[in-house]
Each structure stands twice: as structure tokens, then as C-alpha cells.
């Protein structure tokens, strides 16, 4: 018993101060990409050609990057002869609509909170059921990590629960494999209304690298309404947490 107590003292207090303080991200972290029109050669489309998921398109000389398809692999950045594409350390990536996931010349608009009535219901207590539907266990692992003492999701009143019957909503990962379609639908139906749906990871938004495979459904948004999109392959846990807190109006 004394050993256990000694270990407790030694391990210390480890919960990050986010959102009161900015998060510590790896130096090489690849967040929200940006395109510099001044450095882009008008008639070149090397970036679009290099993109494995067609997330990047160029029309009328302007580049648009759909974060709902982007793997953050930086192949476009490497392919660009003029270094017009850079990945910034902007970790705030979650949006409320599919359209606002596209990075173009519009200013960045972070996810807005749920409406007042829904926030009254879930703002201080949100129970989520996680469903992995063809996910590769990276999004799952970095969602699960929010439960550790490092992030301590519980302090925000957010908790992952064992049954959809106990849940206020779903957090879905993976491209929704055909073999998980029915199970996801049943889990959604078993969750009492009103409910929120959060999709985490590029696969769950668009199918990601598996888009177009006959074995998958190109993401969850094609089958059920989505309230929050969290892009990334996988998103950093802070990106997921930031999205959840914005949805609940805990970060303005």
C-alpha cells in the first residue's frame, strides 16, 4: 500500500491545462494547410496530381483543399515546385458542416456551438457511444486517449458509455465498411433522441484512403446526419477535444 502511495506521488499531476492554456504540439506537427497564391505557378497542377485522395483541386488558378479527404500526408507540399503549400500548426480543424472543411480563400471559421436548447441538454454532460466502422484503430486510439489522466475528458462532463441506450450521441470512426453498416444503423437507432453525431477522422468523413472501394460506404455522413466533423488521419487528440468543446460551447 505504501508503495502504491509513493508511486502516486512520484507520477505527479499530469492533466494538461487545455483549454485555459494552449496545447503543446510536436514541433513537426502538420495541421491546417494553407496555400500562398503568390508562390503558385498558375499553370502547374503538381499538387493535385500528387494527392492520393483527390482532396486538393485547382480551378481558375486557385487551390482548394478539402480537409474531409486530406490525409495530411504532405505529398502536395513536396510536389509543389514553388513551396506554395504549407502545413501550419493550426490544430483547430473541426467544423459543423461538410462544406466548411474546404480550405480556400475564405477565412477560417471554427466549429460553432450547438443551438441553445441542445446545449442546455448536453452542455454540461455529454455521454457518447463510440462506433468503429472500419477504422484502423488510430482514430479509435487517439479518441480513447482522451480518457487518460493526460486529457481527463471527464472534467468537461464528457464520457464514453458502454451502450447506445445510455448515450446522448455517437462518435463514429472509419469509412463505414459495408459489413458494419447495419450495426452502425442499429446503434444509431438505439440512441435516444435528441442525439448528436460526431465523425472523427478522414475515413469517417469521406471514406479517406478507402473512398470508392466497393467494400466501404465513403464515410458516415452519407448514411446519417452529422453534427461535428473532425478531420485528420488520425486527428491529434487535441483536435478532437477542441472540436468537442466547441460543439458544447465550452470554447468560444
Amino acid at each position: 500500500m505504501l508503495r502504491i502511495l509513493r508511486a502516486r506521488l512520484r507520477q505527479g499531476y499530469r492533466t494538461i491545462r487545455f483549454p485555459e492554456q494552449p496545447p503543446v504540439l510536436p514541433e513537426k506537427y502538420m495541421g491546417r494547410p494553407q496555400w500562398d497564391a503568390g508562390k503558385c505557378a498558375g499553370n502547374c497542377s503538381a499538387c493535385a496530381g500528387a494527392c492520393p485522395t483527390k482532396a486538393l483541386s485547382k480551378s481558375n488558378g486557385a487551390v482548394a483543399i478539402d480537409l474531409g479527404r486530406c490525409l495530411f500526408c504532405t505529398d502536395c507540399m513536396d510536389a509543389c515546385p514553388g513551396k506554395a503549400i504549407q502545413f501550419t500548426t493550426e490544430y483547430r480543424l473541426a467544423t459543423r458542416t461538410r462544406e466548411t472543411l474546404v480550405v480556400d480563400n475564405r477565412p477560417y471559421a471554427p466549429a460553432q456551438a450547438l443551438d441553445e436548447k441542445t446545449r442546455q441538454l448536453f452542455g454540461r454532460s455529454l455521454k457518447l457511444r463510440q462506433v468503429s466502422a472500419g477504422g484502423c484503430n488510430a482514430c479509435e486510439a487517439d479518441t480513447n486517449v482522451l480518457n487518460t489522466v493526460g486529457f481527463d475528458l471527464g472534467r468537461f462532463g464528457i464520457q464514453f458509455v458502454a451502450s447506445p441506450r445510455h448515450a446522448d450521441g455517437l462518435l463514429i470512426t472509419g469509412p463505414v465498411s459495408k459489413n458494419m453498416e447495419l450495426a452502425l444503423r442499429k446503434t444509431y437507432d438505439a440512441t435516444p433522441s435528441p442525439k448528436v453525431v460526431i465523425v472523427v477522422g478522414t475515413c469517417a468523413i469521406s471514406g479517406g484512403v478507402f473512398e470508392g472501394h466497393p467494400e466501404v460506404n465513403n464515410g458516415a455522413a452519407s448514411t446519417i446526419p452529422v453534427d461535428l466533423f473532425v478531420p485528420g488521419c488520425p486527428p491529434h487528440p487535441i483536435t478532437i477535444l477542441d472540436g468537442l468543446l466547441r460543439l458544447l460551447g465550452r470554447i468560444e
Partner: protein
Amino acid sequence: MNGLPQLHNGRALPWKDIPEFAVPEFRTMILERVRRGRRISSLFGMPDGDEITILAVLAHDSQGMLELCRTRVRDRYPALTPDVPQAHWFEREIAEQWGIVPEGHPWLKPIRFHTSYVPNRDAWSRDEATPIEPCVTNYFRVEGEEIHEVAVGPVHAGIIEPGHFRFQCHGEDVLHLEIELGYQHRGIERALVGGPSSRTAHYMETLAGDTTIGHATAYASITEALGDMTPAPRAQALRAIALELERVANHTGDLGALAGDIGFLPTASYCGRLRGDFLNITALLCGNRFGRNLIRPGGVRFDPTAPDADNLRIRLDKTFDAVRNAVDLLWETPSVMSRFDGTGIVSRQDAARLGLVGPAARAAGVDLDVRSDLPWGIYQSHELPSVTFQTGDVAARAYVRWFEIQKSIEFIRDVTGALPGGPVLQEVPPPVPDHVAVALVEGWRGEICHVAVTNGQGRLRHYKVTDPSFHNWFGLALALRGQQISDFPLCNKSFNLSYCGHDL
């Protein structure tokens, strides 16, 4: 015994040099060799005109060599499984993918629940118009008035991938567990054919996201074998550092999860965080916690500076000290050890006969480790001795992971301290046509086997992935026999197998 061509791990040979045998000789060849200590690393079908070629990759661990042979079948052949139990899952896969019936297979069922890749040929003569429902199939049933069946999944209680588990129980005691998977099937192998394409490396990194480095290393090795090039020493060192970081992160997380499953919260909470600290060290190398975009054919995409390397070592030591402090609590606490000891035993004989790999095999005394048996890259010059245990229970699987963490930490320290200079990424010549390449990598769950076959244009005619979980899921089922059903989470976590790595 007839000679078979010998292949080093991470090399290629011409397709025509792989001897083709008639089915009876092919069977004898494998039977004899397995009897004399070879293992089936991979056994799979691939289309060949109207027929299916079955290619066997046998590992001769004591000699550090691989042996390949092939046969051709039309729609059925006498199954290997009755004589070589470790073929059982492979033969179910062959049946499902190619509509070939391995006659005499004792339990021939689908493993991923998709339609056959050959039109109008189904191993179970299923009607093509009727959709295949995942895991809707016959299950082994124990009959009796006092017997009950427990079905769990696909959606589980925690944040876990989906799978279906059927327990045959007498009271609390599990008489039999059957595991059916396939929910995570994304059709990756089929999508690889005709490649490489701009997506190929990304498929490799998402085969099993928690094994991004392991699978990406195997693919890089395959591509380099087909291009007949060797990556620079610095690249090899960095790949090994990333692979061992992946191992310590996952082993640490699993030791914490084992503690969590028996309600011992101190270690559960510390290790949960410390796993993340190891992932953050990987992110120090490449910006991503899972090592995405780090490993590519030809080397690695990021080159750490000298301060990066120092920083890595400092953080590694600090994290490891905290892990030692957290994990030692397990061994010092009798209520923990009484739950670990004697739970979920897999005997050495069963582990060997079923072809288990990785920590699950080593915990049962089967001394297999690709890093020491068939070393590749820097493991050829930096020895990393394997860790075995004898008891085959949860305690043994926990100990093996703990000793592996310690050895890997030492290895990372050594390699980081003496990083070779030179380039990290070099051009890979185009793949040679009509060749076969095999790459084995010891991932944190065990042996990862990738096999690539090129066509006349040097494109991928076939690509086969065998995740360690493919070998080991049946081991988990076996470990549950005679256990209390409440021990399932504990046993499950001691294996912690991949669903998507199996389902592909």
C-alpha cells in the same frame, strides 16, 4: 527432402524459380517441412488464368531462411489443415477469396464475409444474389440443458474495433469460444493490385493503424527488394527506432489496460498516459503520433537533427523511469498477480501447432522473433535477443511485454546514441518484372509478412498481407477454454489483437 529455393528476408527472386508441384507433392512438401521445424508464414491463393495458384511461404527460423513453393488448383484440393493445424485460417481465407474448397477442412467457414473474387465460384455454393451478412453463420454449439450461449459484439462496451464473440458456457465456465470477424473489411489487398499508386503507402499505414510503422516497414522492404536497392544505414537505424517506439508504446498501453481490466487503477492510469508519451516521441521524429508519413520505400522522410536525437533520448529515459515505477506495482501487488497467474493458459505445444507468433507465442515458450531469427536492416548488426516465458498465461504475456519494453528501450538508446550519418531517403529503381518478394517484420504483436508478386510490367500482380493477428486470434479462443467468462477482457487484452489487421 527436395531442395526448395532459399530466400533471405527482404529479398526477391524470379517467379519462375519458385518450383511448382502437383497438389499431392505440394502437400507432402509442406507437411514434411512443418514436421521438421518450418512454419507457415503465409499461404494464399492468387488468380492464374482459369486456375488459382497457391503459394506457400515457409519460415525456417533456425536457419534464418524462407522457402517458397507453389501449386495450382481448379476448384478443390485436399486440405492441409487436418495434418498441419496452423494452415486452418489460411485455408478458410483461400476458400473465401477464390471459391476453392479445401476438402476435409474440419471447420470451413468464411473469415471476412465478402463475396468470392471469382465470379460464379463460391466455396459454400451461396446464391450470388443474396447479400452476405457478416458473422451470420453456423457456430460451434455445446448442447445440454445447463448450457447457455453468450453472444457479444460487433459493437462492444469500450472504444474497440468490432468483432463477434460466441461463448458456450456452463455457469460461469467457458467451454468454448468462437470468434468471427470481418466487420472491418475494407478490401485493401484487392485495391493494391495493379499498383503501386499514390495511395499504396497510405494503405500500408492504415492496414492496422496501431502498427503503422510495422506494416510500412514491410512494404518499404518489399519495394526495395523489387528495386534491388538497400536503404542507407541512417534510414535503417531510424526505421528501427520507430519500430521499437511503436512496440514500447503499445506494450505500455496494454500493461495499463491489463491493470484496468482487473480494477487495479494506479498502473492503469499511469500507463495510459505513458503510452501517449511514447507516441509523442514518435511525433518528435515525424510530427505524427502513429508515425504516419515517416517510412517510405527508399528510406524515411524525416531526418532528426542532433538536438532532436538528444531530446528523444532524454524523453525516452524520463518516460521509461515512470513506466518502470508504474509497472513494478503490478508485480509487487499480490491481488494483481493472483489474477494474472494461471489465467488464460495456452500450452507450448498448442502455440507451436497453431502457428502463434509474437509475444503470445514467446509467452508460451515458443522462441520466435523475426528480429533475431530472420533479421533485416539494422537488426542484422544490432542484436536484440528474444524474450520467452514458459507458463503461457496472462502473467507470462504481461512479463514478456515488460521485458521487451526494457530491451527495446536499451536498443533505442544505443542506436540513437550512435546514429550513422548519410542520407535518409534515396530513389528506388522500378520494380523488376515477374518477381516475388517477401518481407517479414517483427511488429509489436508479432510477425508481419508481406508478399508481392510483380507482373511482366513490374506492376503488382498480387500483394498478400499477413498480420500477426491472423495467426493469433485462434490462440485467444483457445486461452478462454475452461476459464470464467469474466476473465475474457483480461485474456483479450493480454493478446490485444487487431481487427482491421485481420480483416484488411
